[in-house]
Protein backbone atom coordinates (compact mmCIF):
# COMPACT_ATOMS: atom_id res chain seq x y z
CA UNK A 1 0.00 0.00 0.00
CA UNK A 2 2.79 2.34 0.97
CA UNK A 3 4.53 1.45 -2.28
CA UNK A 4 1.37 2.20 -4.19
CA UNK A 5 1.02 5.60 -2.53
CA UNK A 6 4.63 6.39 -3.32
CA UNK A 7 3.97 5.34 -6.88
CA UNK A 8 1.00 7.69 -7.14
CA UNK A 9 3.08 10.46 -5.62
CA UNK A 10 5.86 9.83 -8.13
CA UNK A 11 3.39 10.03 -11.01
CA UNK A 12 1.90 13.25 -9.58
CA UNK A 13 5.31 14.84 -9.10
CA UNK A 14 6.33 13.74 -12.58
CA UNK A 15 3.16 15.32 -13.96
CA UNK A 16 3.82 18.59 -12.17
CA UNK A 17 7.42 18.64 -13.36
CA UNK A 18 6.37 18.09 -16.96
CA UNK A 19 3.77 20.86 -16.57
CA UNK A 20 6.40 23.17 -15.17
CA UNK A 21 8.73 22.40 -18.06
CA UNK A 22 6.00 22.56 -20.68
CA UNK A 23 7.29 23.73 -24.01
CA UNK A 24 6.72 27.44 -24.57
CA UNK A 25 4.37 27.65 -27.53
CA UNK A 26 1.64 25.31 -26.37
CA UNK A 27 -1.05 25.35 -23.70
CA UNK A 28 -0.34 22.80 -20.96
CA UNK A 29 -2.70 19.87 -20.51
CA UNK A 30 -5.67 20.57 -18.24
CA UNK A 31 -5.93 24.25 -19.19
CA UNK A 32 -8.82 25.75 -21.19
CA UNK A 33 -8.05 28.56 -23.65
CA UNK A 34 -9.69 31.91 -22.83
CA UNK A 35 -8.39 33.60 -25.99
CA UNK A 36 -9.37 32.13 -29.36
CA UNK A 37 -6.35 33.45 -31.29
CA UNK A 38 -8.58 35.30 -33.76
CA UNK A 39 -10.46 38.08 -32.03
CA UNK A 40 -11.21 39.51 -28.56
CA UNK A 41 -14.45 37.62 -28.01
CA UNK A 42 -14.79 37.04 -24.27
CA UNK A 43 -12.77 40.17 -23.44
CA UNK A 44 -13.64 43.84 -23.04
CA UNK A 45 -11.97 47.17 -22.27
CA UNK A 46 -12.31 48.73 -18.86
CA UNK A 47 -14.03 52.08 -19.33
CA UNK A 48 -13.18 53.33 -15.85
CA UNK A 49 -9.47 52.63 -15.45
CA UNK A 50 -7.18 55.64 -15.16
CA UNK A 51 -4.80 53.93 -17.59
CA UNK A 52 -7.05 54.93 -20.49
CA UNK A 53 -10.33 53.79 -21.99
CA UNK A 54 -9.54 53.66 -25.71
CA UNK A 55 -6.35 51.60 -26.06
CA UNK A 56 -5.50 50.00 -29.40
CA UNK A 57 -6.10 46.41 -28.33
CA UNK A 58 -6.31 43.96 -31.19
CA UNK A 59 -5.26 40.52 -32.44
CA UNK A 60 -2.20 40.33 -34.67
CA UNK A 61 -0.53 37.12 -35.83
CA UNK A 62 -2.61 35.12 -33.35
CA UNK A 63 -1.60 37.27 -30.37
CA UNK A 64 -3.47 39.81 -28.25
CA UNK A 65 -1.56 43.01 -29.00
CA UNK A 66 -1.72 46.03 -26.72
CA UNK A 67 -0.68 49.43 -28.03
CA UNK A 68 -1.50 52.94 -26.94
CA UNK A 69 -4.22 55.02 -28.54
CA UNK A 70 -4.25 57.96 -28.69
CA UNK A 71 -0.70 58.97 -27.68
CA UNK A 72 -0.16 58.45 -23.96
CA UNK A 73 -3.42 56.60 -23.28
CA UNK A 74 -3.18 52.94 -22.29
CA UNK A 75 -5.85 50.74 -20.82
CA UNK A 76 -6.85 47.44 -19.31
CA UNK A 77 -8.27 44.49 -21.27
CA UNK A 78 -10.48 42.33 -19.06
CA UNK A 79 -12.07 38.92 -19.37
CA UNK A 80 -15.86 39.07 -19.40
CA UNK A 81 -15.87 36.25 -16.83
CA UNK A 82 -14.70 36.38 -13.23
CA UNK A 83 -12.50 33.70 -11.70
CA UNK A 84 -12.05 32.77 -8.07
CA UNK A 85 -9.38 30.09 -7.59
CA UNK A 86 -7.37 29.39 -10.69
CA UNK A 87 -4.14 28.80 -12.51
CA UNK A 88 -3.53 31.13 -15.41
CA UNK A 89 -1.12 30.23 -18.20
CA UNK A 90 -0.03 32.67 -20.87
CA UNK A 91 2.93 33.53 -23.02
CA UNK A 92 4.08 37.11 -23.28
CA UNK A 93 6.42 38.96 -25.62
CA UNK A 94 7.02 42.46 -24.35
CA UNK A 95 8.93 45.43 -25.74
CA UNK A 96 11.40 47.10 -23.40
CA UNK A 97 10.56 50.36 -21.60
CA UNK A 98 6.85 49.56 -21.78
CA UNK A 99 5.11 49.05 -18.45
CA UNK A 100 2.25 46.61 -18.33
CA UNK A 101 1.03 43.78 -16.20
CA UNK A 102 -1.15 40.75 -15.67
CA UNK A 103 -4.12 41.61 -13.41
CA UNK A 104 -5.53 38.99 -11.06
CA UNK A 105 -9.05 39.12 -9.59
CA UNK A 106 -9.40 42.53 -11.20
CA UNK A 107 -12.40 44.76 -10.66
CA UNK A 108 -14.02 46.54 -13.60
CA UNK A 109 -11.89 49.66 -13.02
CA UNK A 110 -8.70 47.62 -12.84
CA UNK A 111 -8.12 47.37 -9.10
CA UNK A 112 -6.13 44.15 -8.82
CA UNK A 113 -3.20 42.09 -7.66
CA UNK A 114 -0.67 42.47 -10.45
CA UNK A 115 2.28 40.58 -11.89
CA UNK A 116 4.37 43.37 -13.38
CA UNK A 117 5.66 43.28 -16.97
CA UNK A 118 8.47 45.76 -17.48
CA UNK A 119 11.89 45.45 -19.06
CA UNK A 120 14.70 45.80 -18.35
CA UNK A 121 13.57 45.66 -14.69
CA UNK A 122 10.43 44.75 -12.80
CA UNK A 123 8.98 41.80 -14.70
CA UNK A 124 7.53 39.11 -12.45
CA UNK A 125 7.20 41.33 -9.39
CA UNK A 126 3.94 41.10 -7.44
CA UNK A 127 2.32 44.50 -6.89
CA UNK A 128 -1.10 46.04 -6.37
CA UNK A 129 -2.82 48.15 -9.00
CA UNK A 130 -4.92 50.87 -7.32
CA UNK A 131 -4.71 48.53 -4.35
CA UNK A 132 -2.17 48.77 -1.54
CA UNK A 133 -1.34 45.08 -1.09
CA UNK A 134 0.05 43.68 2.14
CA UNK A 135 3.02 41.88 0.68
CA UNK A 136 4.83 42.70 -2.54
CA UNK A 137 7.38 40.19 -3.88
CA UNK A 138 10.23 40.48 -6.37
CA UNK A 139 11.08 37.87 -8.98
CA UNK A 140 14.77 37.87 -8.16
CA UNK A 141 15.53 34.75 -10.27
CA UNK A 142 13.96 36.02 -13.45
CA UNK A 143 17.21 36.64 -15.34
CA UNK A 144 18.11 32.94 -14.97
CA UNK A 145 15.24 31.83 -17.19
CA UNK A 146 14.21 34.93 -19.18
CA UNK A 147 14.52 34.76 -22.97
CA UNK A 148 15.09 38.35 -24.18
CA UNK A 149 13.12 39.43 -27.23
CA UNK A 150 11.18 36.17 -27.27
CA UNK A 151 8.04 34.55 -25.89
CA UNK A 152 8.17 33.74 -22.19
CA UNK A 153 5.68 31.53 -20.34
CA UNK A 154 3.92 32.69 -17.16
CA UNK A 155 1.96 30.39 -14.92
CA UNK A 156 0.21 32.02 -11.97
CA UNK A 157 -1.80 30.27 -9.30
CA UNK A 158 -4.18 32.25 -7.11
CA UNK A 159 -6.46 30.69 -4.54
CA UNK A 160 -8.13 31.33 -1.21
CA UNK A 161 -10.23 34.10 0.30
CA UNK A 162 -6.96 35.35 1.71
CA UNK A 163 -5.00 35.15 -1.51
CA UNK A 164 -2.22 32.57 -1.88
CA UNK A 165 -0.24 33.36 -5.02
CA UNK A 166 2.51 31.50 -6.86
CA UNK A 167 4.38 32.49 -10.02
CA UNK A 168 6.41 30.33 -12.39
CA UNK A 169 8.22 31.83 -15.39
CA UNK A 170 9.36 29.37 -18.08
CA UNK A 171 8.72 26.58 -15.58
CA UNK A 172 10.87 28.05 -12.80
CA UNK A 173 9.14 29.12 -9.58
CA UNK A 174 9.76 32.80 -8.89
CA UNK A 175 7.84 33.16 -5.64
CA UNK A 176 5.11 31.69 -3.48
CA UNK A 177 3.33 34.04 -1.08
CA UNK A 178 0.20 34.09 1.06
CA UNK A 179 -1.03 37.58 1.81
CA UNK A 180 -1.76 38.22 5.50
CA UNK A 181 -5.26 39.41 4.52
CA UNK A 182 -7.57 39.97 1.59
CA UNK A 183 -6.54 43.45 0.46
CA UNK A 184 -9.53 44.20 -1.76
CA UNK A 185 -11.56 47.31 -0.91
CA UNK A 186 -14.88 45.50 -0.98
CA UNK A 187 -13.46 42.12 0.11
CA UNK A 188 -13.72 40.50 -3.34
CA UNK A 189 -12.74 36.82 -3.60
CA UNK A 190 -13.09 36.65 -7.37
CA UNK A 191 -12.42 38.91 -10.29
CA UNK A 192 -11.39 39.20 -13.89
CA UNK A 193 -8.08 38.45 -15.57
CA UNK A 194 -6.69 41.67 -16.97
CA UNK A 195 -3.88 42.77 -19.27
CA UNK A 196 -2.64 46.26 -18.55
CA UNK A 197 -0.96 48.88 -20.71
CA UNK A 198 0.24 51.87 -18.69
CA UNK A 199 -0.64 55.47 -19.51
CA UNK A 200 2.24 57.80 -20.28
CA UNK A 201 0.75 61.24 -21.01
CA UNK A 202 -2.10 63.36 -19.63
CA UNK A 203 -4.69 65.22 -21.69
CA UNK A 204 -3.06 68.63 -21.46
CA UNK A 205 0.07 70.41 -20.18
CA UNK A 206 -2.36 72.39 -17.97
CA UNK A 207 -2.51 69.36 -15.64
CA UNK A 208 1.07 70.29 -14.64
CA UNK A 209 1.63 66.58 -14.12
CA UNK A 210 4.95 64.88 -13.59
CA UNK A 211 6.22 63.08 -16.66
CA UNK A 212 5.23 59.43 -17.02
CA UNK A 213 6.76 59.15 -20.49
CA UNK A 214 9.10 56.44 -19.23
CA UNK A 215 6.22 54.06 -18.69
CA UNK A 216 5.57 53.42 -22.39
CA UNK A 217 8.02 53.86 -25.22
CA UNK A 218 6.26 55.35 -28.27
CA UNK A 219 5.10 52.68 -30.70
CA UNK A 220 5.79 49.86 -28.20
CA UNK A 221 3.62 46.78 -27.74
CA UNK A 222 2.91 43.92 -25.37
CA UNK A 223 1.75 40.67 -26.96
CA UNK A 224 0.06 37.64 -25.40
CA UNK A 225 -0.76 34.20 -26.81
CA UNK A 226 -1.84 30.80 -25.54
CA UNK A 227 -3.87 32.44 -22.77
CA UNK A 228 -5.55 29.66 -20.79
CA UNK A 229 -7.00 28.93 -17.40
CA UNK A 230 -7.48 25.99 -15.11
CA UNK A 231 -10.11 26.66 -12.49
CA UNK A 232 -9.48 25.23 -9.03
CA UNK A 233 -12.05 24.35 -6.42
Amino acid sequence: MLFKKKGVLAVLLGGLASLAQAQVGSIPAGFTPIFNGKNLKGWHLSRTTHQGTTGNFHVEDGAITLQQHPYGQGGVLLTDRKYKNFELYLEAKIDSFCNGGIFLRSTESGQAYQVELMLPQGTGNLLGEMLPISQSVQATNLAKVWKPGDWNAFRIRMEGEVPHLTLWVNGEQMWDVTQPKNDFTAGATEGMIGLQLHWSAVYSPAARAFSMAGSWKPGGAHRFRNVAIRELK
Partner: protein
Amino acid sequence: MKSSNWLVGLGLLPVLPMLAQTPTFTNSIGMEFVRIEPGRMVVGRFQPPHPKRGEARGLAWTDADYQLAEKLATRDASPGFPVTIARSYYIGKFEVTQAQWKRVMGSNSSVFQGEKVSGNADQHPVENVTWADVQVFLKKLNRLEKGRTYRLPTEFEWEYAARAGADDDIAWAEIRQMAQLGTRTTNPVGQKKPNAWGLYDTLGNVWEWVQDFYNEKLFANPVPTRSGKQHVLKGASFVGDVKNATYLTHAAGPGNGWDVGFRVVMETN
Protein backbone atom coordinates in the same frame (compact mmCIF):
# COMPACT_ATOMS: atom_id res chain seq x y z
CA MET B 1 -28.92 99.61 -1.30
CA LYS B 2 -26.88 96.49 -1.51
CA SER B 3 -23.40 97.09 -2.91
CA SER B 4 -24.01 94.64 -5.75
CA ASN B 5 -27.19 96.47 -6.79
CA TRP B 6 -25.30 99.72 -6.68
CA LEU B 7 -22.68 98.28 -9.03
CA VAL B 8 -25.35 97.00 -11.36
CA GLY B 9 -26.92 100.43 -11.31
CA LEU B 10 -23.66 101.83 -12.57
CA GLY B 11 -23.58 99.22 -15.35
CA LEU B 12 -20.50 97.56 -13.86
CA LEU B 13 -22.14 94.17 -13.29
CA PRO B 14 -24.05 93.02 -16.37
CA VAL B 15 -25.51 90.09 -14.46
CA LEU B 16 -29.15 91.04 -13.90
CA PRO B 17 -30.57 87.62 -14.83
CA MET B 18 -28.29 86.05 -12.25
CA LEU B 19 -29.40 88.36 -9.47
CA ALA B 20 -33.04 87.95 -10.40
CA GLN B 21 -33.14 84.37 -9.12
CA THR B 22 -31.79 82.57 -6.11
CA PRO B 23 -28.37 81.12 -6.80
CA THR B 24 -29.00 78.20 -4.47
CA PHE B 25 -32.02 76.09 -3.65
CA THR B 26 -32.85 73.40 -1.09
CA ASN B 27 -35.72 71.01 -1.75
CA SER B 28 -38.12 69.32 0.66
CA ILE B 29 -35.78 66.44 1.44
CA GLY B 30 -32.77 68.64 2.02
CA MET B 31 -31.06 68.25 -1.35
CA GLU B 32 -29.05 71.42 -2.00
CA PHE B 33 -28.62 72.86 -5.49
CA VAL B 34 -26.48 75.53 -7.11
CA ARG B 35 -27.81 77.52 -10.05
CA ILE B 36 -25.63 77.32 -13.16
CA GLU B 37 -25.95 80.10 -15.72
CA PRO B 38 -25.68 79.67 -19.51
CA GLY B 39 -22.28 79.90 -21.17
CA ARG B 40 -19.78 78.25 -23.46
CA MET B 41 -16.87 75.85 -23.19
CA VAL B 42 -14.59 73.80 -25.43
CA VAL B 43 -14.93 70.03 -24.98
CA GLY B 44 -12.54 67.35 -26.20
CA ARG B 45 -9.38 69.40 -26.46
CA PHE B 46 -6.49 66.91 -26.42
CA GLN B 47 -2.93 68.21 -26.34
CA PRO B 48 -0.86 65.41 -24.78
CA PRO B 49 2.54 66.61 -23.61
CA HIS B 50 5.50 64.59 -24.88
CA PRO B 51 9.13 64.70 -23.77
CA LYS B 52 11.76 66.50 -25.79
CA ARG B 53 15.37 65.44 -25.88
CA GLY B 54 17.33 67.14 -23.14
CA GLU B 55 14.25 67.90 -21.03
CA ALA B 56 13.54 64.38 -19.85
CA ARG B 57 15.69 62.72 -17.24
CA GLY B 58 16.23 58.96 -17.05
CA LEU B 59 14.52 58.13 -20.34
CA ALA B 60 16.34 55.44 -22.31
CA TRP B 61 14.98 56.72 -25.62
CA THR B 62 16.78 57.12 -28.93
CA ASP B 63 16.42 60.17 -31.19
CA ALA B 64 13.97 58.12 -33.24
CA ASP B 65 11.83 57.52 -30.12
CA TYR B 66 11.61 61.25 -29.37
CA GLN B 67 10.70 61.96 -33.00
CA LEU B 68 8.03 59.24 -32.95
CA ALA B 69 6.57 60.61 -29.70
CA GLU B 70 6.26 64.05 -31.29
CA LYS B 71 4.74 62.59 -34.45
CA LEU B 72 2.15 60.52 -32.54
CA ALA B 73 1.25 63.30 -30.09
CA THR B 74 0.78 65.74 -33.00
CA ARG B 75 -1.21 63.19 -35.00
CA ASP B 76 -3.59 62.51 -32.11
CA ALA B 77 -3.99 66.08 -30.80
CA SER B 78 -7.40 67.66 -31.19
CA PRO B 79 -8.57 71.28 -30.75
CA GLY B 80 -11.93 70.09 -29.38
CA PHE B 81 -15.28 71.61 -30.23
CA PRO B 82 -17.38 74.47 -28.81
CA VAL B 83 -20.38 73.64 -26.65
CA THR B 84 -23.04 76.16 -25.74
CA ILE B 85 -25.05 75.74 -22.57
CA ALA B 86 -28.14 77.62 -23.64
CA ARG B 87 -30.31 77.29 -20.52
CA SER B 88 -29.66 77.75 -16.85
CA TYR B 89 -30.15 74.78 -14.51
CA TYR B 90 -29.70 73.81 -10.91
CA ILE B 91 -27.26 71.02 -10.14
CA GLY B 92 -26.68 69.13 -6.89
CA LYS B 93 -24.13 70.82 -4.65
CA PHE B 94 -23.26 67.31 -3.42
CA GLU B 95 -23.52 63.75 -4.66
CA VAL B 96 -26.85 62.19 -3.66
CA THR B 97 -26.39 60.75 -0.19
CA GLN B 98 -27.52 57.44 1.24
CA ALA B 99 -29.94 59.32 3.55
CA GLN B 100 -31.56 61.03 0.56
CA TRP B 101 -31.75 57.77 -1.40
CA LYS B 102 -33.41 56.01 1.56
CA ARG B 103 -35.90 58.87 1.96
CA VAL B 104 -37.02 58.58 -1.65
CA MET B 105 -36.64 54.83 -2.26
CA GLY B 106 -37.13 53.31 1.19
CA SER B 107 -34.10 51.08 0.66
CA ASN B 108 -30.31 51.33 0.36
CA SER B 109 -28.16 49.07 -1.79
CA SER B 110 -24.87 50.83 -0.98
CA VAL B 111 -21.90 48.60 -0.17
CA PHE B 112 -20.25 51.14 2.11
CA GLN B 113 -22.69 51.32 5.03
CA GLY B 114 -22.93 49.79 8.49
CA GLU B 115 -19.65 48.30 9.68
CA LYS B 116 -17.99 49.01 6.33
CA VAL B 117 -17.58 52.70 7.21
CA SER B 118 -16.58 54.56 10.30
CA GLY B 119 -19.31 56.84 11.57
CA ASN B 120 -22.73 57.42 10.06
CA ALA B 121 -23.06 56.24 6.45
CA ASP B 122 -26.05 58.52 5.84
CA GLN B 123 -23.83 61.35 4.62
CA HIS B 124 -21.82 59.06 2.33
CA PRO B 125 -22.87 59.08 -1.31
CA VAL B 126 -25.23 56.35 -2.36
CA GLU B 127 -23.44 53.82 -4.60
CA ASN B 128 -24.01 50.43 -6.14
CA VAL B 129 -26.80 51.99 -8.21
CA THR B 130 -27.20 51.36 -11.92
CA TRP B 131 -28.27 54.01 -14.40
CA ALA B 132 -31.69 52.33 -14.51
CA ASP B 133 -31.94 52.41 -10.68
CA VAL B 134 -31.28 56.16 -10.83
CA GLN B 135 -34.14 56.65 -13.31
CA VAL B 136 -36.49 55.02 -10.78
CA PHE B 137 -35.17 57.33 -8.06
CA LEU B 138 -35.79 60.35 -10.28
CA LYS B 139 -39.31 59.26 -11.13
CA LYS B 140 -40.10 58.97 -7.42
CA LEU B 141 -38.40 62.27 -6.58
CA ASN B 142 -40.42 64.02 -9.30
CA ARG B 143 -43.62 62.57 -7.77
CA LEU B 144 -42.54 63.66 -4.30
CA GLU B 145 -41.68 67.21 -5.37
CA LYS B 146 -44.64 68.19 -7.50
CA GLY B 147 -44.08 71.08 -9.89
CA ARG B 148 -40.34 70.52 -10.20
CA THR B 149 -38.41 68.54 -12.81
CA TYR B 150 -35.45 66.48 -11.69
CA ARG B 151 -33.20 64.45 -14.00
CA LEU B 152 -29.59 63.44 -14.49
CA PRO B 153 -27.34 66.13 -15.97
CA THR B 154 -26.33 65.73 -19.58
CA GLU B 155 -22.60 65.11 -19.90
CA PHE B 156 -22.09 68.68 -21.12
CA GLU B 157 -24.09 70.12 -18.21
CA TRP B 158 -22.07 68.02 -15.79
CA GLU B 159 -18.73 69.03 -17.31
CA TYR B 160 -19.67 72.71 -17.58
CA ALA B 161 -20.63 72.80 -13.88
CA ALA B 162 -17.55 70.80 -12.82
CA ARG B 163 -15.19 73.03 -14.78
CA ALA B 164 -16.72 76.10 -13.14
CA GLY B 165 -15.35 78.42 -15.81
CA ALA B 166 -12.00 76.70 -16.40
CA ASP B 167 -11.08 76.59 -20.08
CA ASP B 168 -8.37 73.93 -19.86
CA ASP B 169 -7.57 70.87 -17.76
CA ILE B 170 -7.30 71.11 -13.99
CA ALA B 171 -3.84 71.01 -12.37
CA TRP B 172 -2.92 67.91 -10.36
CA ALA B 173 -2.21 70.02 -7.29
CA GLU B 174 -5.76 71.36 -7.39
CA ILE B 175 -7.25 67.89 -7.97
CA ARG B 176 -5.56 66.73 -4.77
CA GLN B 177 -7.28 69.54 -2.83
CA MET B 178 -10.70 68.85 -4.30
CA ALA B 179 -10.97 65.12 -4.86
CA GLN B 180 -11.47 62.18 -2.52
CA LEU B 181 -8.83 59.81 -3.95
CA GLY B 182 -6.86 56.86 -2.65
CA THR B 183 -9.15 56.11 0.28
CA ARG B 184 -10.37 52.64 1.31
CA THR B 185 -14.07 53.50 1.25
CA THR B 186 -16.41 56.23 0.08
CA ASN B 187 -16.26 59.40 2.19
CA PRO B 188 -18.95 61.70 3.60
CA VAL B 189 -19.86 64.27 0.94
CA GLY B 190 -18.53 67.81 1.14
CA GLN B 191 -15.29 67.20 3.03
CA LYS B 192 -12.85 68.53 0.42
CA LYS B 193 -12.46 71.92 -1.25
CA PRO B 194 -15.41 72.85 -3.51
CA ASN B 195 -14.91 74.03 -7.07
CA ALA B 196 -15.17 77.71 -8.03
CA TRP B 197 -18.96 77.49 -8.31
CA GLY B 198 -19.42 75.82 -4.93
CA LEU B 199 -19.88 72.18 -6.00
CA TYR B 200 -18.31 69.45 -3.87
CA ASP B 201 -16.82 66.10 -4.89
CA THR B 202 -17.26 66.55 -8.62
CA LEU B 203 -13.90 64.76 -8.77
CA GLY B 204 -13.31 61.61 -6.72
CA ASN B 205 -15.50 59.93 -4.09
CA VAL B 206 -17.92 58.21 -6.52
CA TRP B 207 -18.23 58.16 -10.29
CA GLU B 208 -21.35 60.04 -11.36
CA TRP B 209 -23.87 58.83 -13.92
CA VAL B 210 -24.97 61.34 -16.54
CA GLN B 211 -27.87 61.09 -18.96
CA ASP B 212 -25.85 60.33 -22.11
CA PHE B 213 -25.07 57.10 -23.89
CA TYR B 214 -21.38 56.22 -24.29
CA ASN B 215 -19.79 56.54 -27.74
CA GLU B 216 -16.71 54.35 -26.94
CA LYS B 217 -14.38 57.26 -27.80
CA LEU B 218 -11.93 59.38 -25.80
CA PHE B 219 -14.41 62.26 -25.60
CA ALA B 220 -18.08 62.91 -26.32
CA ASN B 221 -19.25 63.66 -29.85
CA PRO B 222 -20.27 67.29 -30.55
CA VAL B 223 -23.80 65.93 -30.95
CA PRO B 224 -24.09 63.29 -28.24
CA THR B 225 -24.77 59.77 -29.45
CA ARG B 226 -28.39 58.66 -29.08
CA SER B 227 -27.74 54.97 -28.50
CA GLY B 228 -25.13 52.71 -26.97
CA LYS B 229 -24.49 49.78 -24.66
CA GLN B 230 -23.52 51.87 -21.65
CA HIS B 231 -24.03 55.31 -20.19
CA VAL B 232 -21.31 57.85 -19.48
CA LEU B 233 -19.64 58.18 -16.08
CA LYS B 234 -17.83 61.37 -15.03
CA GLY B 235 -15.49 62.48 -12.29
CA ALA B 236 -13.68 59.29 -11.14
CA SER B 237 -13.97 57.70 -7.71
CA PHE B 238 -12.08 57.15 -4.47
CA VAL B 239 -10.18 54.30 -6.18
CA GLY B 240 -9.36 56.54 -9.12
CA ASP B 241 -6.11 58.33 -9.72
CA VAL B 242 -5.14 61.94 -10.20
CA LYS B 243 -4.64 60.97 -13.87
CA ASN B 244 -8.37 60.47 -14.52
CA ALA B 245 -9.94 62.51 -11.70
CA THR B 246 -10.37 65.40 -14.10
CA TYR B 247 -13.57 66.81 -15.55
CA LEU B 248 -12.26 65.92 -19.01
CA THR B 249 -12.45 62.16 -18.42
CA HIS B 250 -15.20 60.54 -20.48
CA ALA B 251 -15.73 57.11 -18.92
CA ALA B 252 -18.59 54.63 -18.90
CA GLY B 253 -20.39 51.97 -16.96
CA PRO B 254 -20.68 49.53 -15.48
CA GLY B 255 -17.70 50.48 -13.27
CA ASN B 256 -17.13 48.72 -9.99
CA GLY B 257 -20.67 49.34 -8.74
CA TRP B 258 -19.53 50.17 -5.21
CA ASP B 259 -17.94 53.42 -6.41
CA VAL B 260 -20.69 54.59 -8.76
CA GLY B 261 -23.28 57.19 -7.71
CA PHE B 262 -24.73 60.40 -9.16
CA ARG B 263 -25.86 63.98 -8.63
CA VAL B 264 -29.10 65.50 -9.82
CA VAL B 265 -30.16 68.39 -12.02
CA MET B 266 -33.30 70.37 -11.27
CA GLU B 267 -34.61 72.31 -14.25
CA THR B 268 -35.26 76.04 -13.93
CA ASN B 269 -38.86 77.02 -14.55
